[in-house]
């Protein structure tokens, strides 16, 4: 009897596996004992250009819910969800979350950085440049990243000299980081004798 039950249970489990796998990826959330930490982990991966599953946004939804009433944690959850929205090219949502983070806790440089990226993605480059400048004014941990991001926004806005100076600043701040140097190599520069 027990053997028959075990066989039946195994057969059911095997039959259901493909469905479970597909559902887990698309809609069903895995149990998340600490959604705030998981949200942060997913955002870090997305920020580094790694692929993350769509439901990572839902983990961050849980993080936002759990952080209600805690200023630092709520701002952090909004910042991290904005990174995921950026990764999924949901720029309006990324902008809204960045604004919510700034509203929850003024002076969080990362919210201004992500706000700038969202604005830049929708070609609001002047506002993006201002958002990055706001981030720089808050003394971020990695200013080279903000200068690099602002350089791209300035370049997209047609401010080639501003872009050049920002790429150069990023390269000066992080001499071992190759990407700003590679961008500088695209510029042909002269020094005006009249100035």
């Amino acid at each position, binding site marked *: 009897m027990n053997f028959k039950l075990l066989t039946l249970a195994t057969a059911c489990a095997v039959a259901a596996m493909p469905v479970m796998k597909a559902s887990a990826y698309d809609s069903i959330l895995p149990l998340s004992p*600490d959604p*705030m*930490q998981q949200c*942060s982990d997913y*955002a*870090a991966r*997305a*920020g*580094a*250009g*790694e692929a993350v599953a769509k439901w990572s946004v839902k983990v961050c939804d849980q993080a936002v819910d759990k952080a209600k009433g805690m200023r*630092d*944690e709520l*701002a*952090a*959850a909004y*910042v*991290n969800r*904005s*990174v995921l929205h*950026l990764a999924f*090219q949901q720029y309006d949502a990324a902008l809204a979350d960045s604004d919510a983070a700034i509203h929850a*806790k003024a002076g*969080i*440089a*990362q919210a201004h*950085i992500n706000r*700038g*990226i969202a604005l*830049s*993605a929708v*070609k609001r480059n002047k506002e993006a440049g201002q958002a990055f400048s706001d981030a720089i004014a808050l003394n*971020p941990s*990695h200013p*080279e*990243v903000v200068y*690099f*991001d602002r350089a*791209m926004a300035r*370049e*997209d806005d047609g401010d*080639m*000299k501003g*872009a*050049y*100076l920002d790429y150069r600043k990023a390269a000066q701040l*992080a001499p071992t*980081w*190759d*990407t700003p140097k*590679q*961008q500088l190599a*695209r*510029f*042909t*520069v*002269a*020094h*005006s004798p009249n*100035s």
Partner: protein
Amino acid sequence: MKWALFFCAVSVVALPFQMTMAAASDDDDIVILAVKPRDPNVKPIAAAVSPKGEDISKPQAANAGVQVSRR
């Protein structure tokens, strides 16, 4: 001798200002003649934080950036 010391002191005090002005004028002199198109794979880098809000980004390792495309 006193005059020499005076001018020496003035020069030393003025040196940082001269250096600042020189640096500023270096930037003013720059003229961008041409710019090659940017590789579309170069992306802006978003900033994630810890659950408490501390910065956890690793910019030099995270060279890919977020996949942001222009609308």
